[in-house]
């Protein structure tokens, strides 16, 4: 009978871990639906970029208030995980504060430091909640932030509050035990609130908060993959696999290079049948749907935490156009999820008559982009909405010929006279004599 809590704990831990692993596996599979792109080079630079941008949060600090508050929550998340480790050990072995004997005199200061972080986190979370719900920061209230996106953001804040509340009260109750061994910096001041409770009530309450804290963490873990908050994990691979080239360098499409080389080769036989490639899928120029994008684009989509810094820096968005780089990422994620479910149900993808371009992202959004890279610069975790926009434009222009008329006229000029305007190429040096 005395082993019941241990068994319950192990069952909870195993269930949470298995469910989480399963969901992560599905997301991994979905990301794998993307086209291949080589990001295996420059591993040193990649590691450095990850340490700087994800671990060191360098780009978060572009906005000092949000940057500082986020840093508190982030550090406290990393550090309080040590305490969670202790809880897990206690839960499995049925011990109480298993790390205390090993840490000796250092134990109380360490837990006290965790408590300070917990209080700072509560303050930061409350400020975040205020910014989102009361002062209504513009970027949190764009059209794409209605419904689930908005609820999700608040859910995260509420879960964090509950976890911190449980952690502090668990310690506060214990401080009132008749045989209390521990007293910590913050919880000692919460302790008097519970001093009237009976010894049995104190022990029951302490266990209750202990379970609330750890079950809350298990629930949080499994909520993550359904939430924008998954960035706390994916920010690391995402920054590792980020594009390290100059932002102005847009990918050259290799399939097109082959065609162009053939066109420019005077000895090429235009009637030669292409070499048959068995079962080669029909290649499409650019991207129409989410699975035409690269896995890096899809990883970006799952990593996005919908902070909206990209959208608030976007010149098109700030002048009232429909384009929102954040929405590009959210649409991509929604669509690849949908494709994933479709494949899971049918074994293979069955056409559902929908596509990323058209049903999720409209032409009006697509053509408002100035390719200025402000969104890419603004993203604290190196997400690149511009790369997706350009792939969609490739499809719109090369496969559908649906570019705006004025751009078609410009392209005709480039084709005919080597300039975007209808001037004769022979006149290019006229300025010398004008």
């Amino acid at each position: 009978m005395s082993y019941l809590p241990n068994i319950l704990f192990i069952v909870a831990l195993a269930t949470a871990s298995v469910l989480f692993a399963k969901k992560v596996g599905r997301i991994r599979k979905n990301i794998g639906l993307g086209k291949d792109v080589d990001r295996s080079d420059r591993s040193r630079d990649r590691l450095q970029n990850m340490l700087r941008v994800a671990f060191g949060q360098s780009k978060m600090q572009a906005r000092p208030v949000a940057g500082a508050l986020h840093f508190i929550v982030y550090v406290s998340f990393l550090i309080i995980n040590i305490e969670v480790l202790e809880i897990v050990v206690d839960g499995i072995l049925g011990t109480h504060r298993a790390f205390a004997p090993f840490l000796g005199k250092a134990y109380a200061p360490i837990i006290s430091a965790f408590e300070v972080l917990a209080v700072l986190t509560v303050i930061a979370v409350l400020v975040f909640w205020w910014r989102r719900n009361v002062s209504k920061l513009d970027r949190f209230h764009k059209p794409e932030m209605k419904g689930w996106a908005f609820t999700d953001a608040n859910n995260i804040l509420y879960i964090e509050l509950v976890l911190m509340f449980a952690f502090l009260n668990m310690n506060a109750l214990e401080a009132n035990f008749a045989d209390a061994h521990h007293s910590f910096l913050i919880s000692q001041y919460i302790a008097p609130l519970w001093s009237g409770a009976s010894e049995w009530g104190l022990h029951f309450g302490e266990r209750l908060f202990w379970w609330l804290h750890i079950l809350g963490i298990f629930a949080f873990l499994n909520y993550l993959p359904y939430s924008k908050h998954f960035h706390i994990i994916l920010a690391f691979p995402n920054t590792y696999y980020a594009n390290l080239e100059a932002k102005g360098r847009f990918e050259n499409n290799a399939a097109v290079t082959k065609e162009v080389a053939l066109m420019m080769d005077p000895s090429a036989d235009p009637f030669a049948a292409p070499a048959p490639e068995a079962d080669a899928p029909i290649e499409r120029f650019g991207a129409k749907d989410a699975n035409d994008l690269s896995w890096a684009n899809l990883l970006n989509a799952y990593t996005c935490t919908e902070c909206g810094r990209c959208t608030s820096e976007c010149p098109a968005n700030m002048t009232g156009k429909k384009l929102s780089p954040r929405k590009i990422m959210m649409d991509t994620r929604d669509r690849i999820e949908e494709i994933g479910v479709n494949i899971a149900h049918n074994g293979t993808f069955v056409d559902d008559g929908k596509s990323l371009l058209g049903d999720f992202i409209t032409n009006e959004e697509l053509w408002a982009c100035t390719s200025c890279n402000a969104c890419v610069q603004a993203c604290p975790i190196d997400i690149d909405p511009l790369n997706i926009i350009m792939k969609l434009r490739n499809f719109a222009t090369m496969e559908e010929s649906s570019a705006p008329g004025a751009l078609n006229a410009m392209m005709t000029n480039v084709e005919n006279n080597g300039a975007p305007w209808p001037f004769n190429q022979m006149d290019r040096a006229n300025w010398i004599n004008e």
Partner: protein
Amino acid sequence: MTTFHVPTLAQMTAEGKAPEVLFWVGCAGSFDDRAKKITKAMAKILHHTGISFAVLGAEEGCTGDPAKRAGNEFLFQMQAMMNIQVLNGYEVKHIVTTCPHCFNTLKNEYPELGGNYHVEHHSQFLNRLLKEGRLKIEGGSFKGKKITFHDPCYLGRANDEYEAPRALLEKLDVSLKEMRRCKQNGLCCGAGGSQMFKEAEKGTAEINHVRADEAMDTGAEIVVAGCPFCNTMLTDGVKNREKEDQVQVLDLAEMIALAEDL
């Protein structure tokens, strides 16, 4: 009319000579009346420094930047391959251009297609000449003038070059007032991504008007740009507020040419 001879690369090659640098003029620089003034200013500076340079003239074609940004990868690569054939045929090693779009495309997108050159934006090129002592700039007429600098996206964020243009302006002894959004956070003029060639989508404001307002809010008498397209957009934005008599929009090359009375 330029008072000096601007040779084409074909002429120079025929004479058995090779220039130190190829001046890539670009489409705007060749055809747009406003941008032609920037081209001429740059040619004057090049001539003034005594550097041997040439242009491609009729052998130059659009780099393909607007086609690529409009999604037409095919047309982009056609343009790129034609230009690369010309450039490689002349064994061009070093290119300078006054257009950040040409600069970006030549520098970043041509190498993979077989075009490998040392490409510089004119701000980088002129800044280097300054450091090497091959170009001298005196403050002259701009001493103490309030100016602001608009970072072109394709020079700034796209290629992380923020200092070269500012170093040049410093030499002119101007009083540089930065806009709230500058350098990495600079606001686009609205022309990039082929927007130059189409109407903007429906919205509440024009990007170039917003940006020109930001520039004028600094109290600057001169808005300095480093891109012919930004120049057009900002000039339009200044006119939108009917401030064209008070506020000038000038290119870096024009500033230097004016200061040196070239």
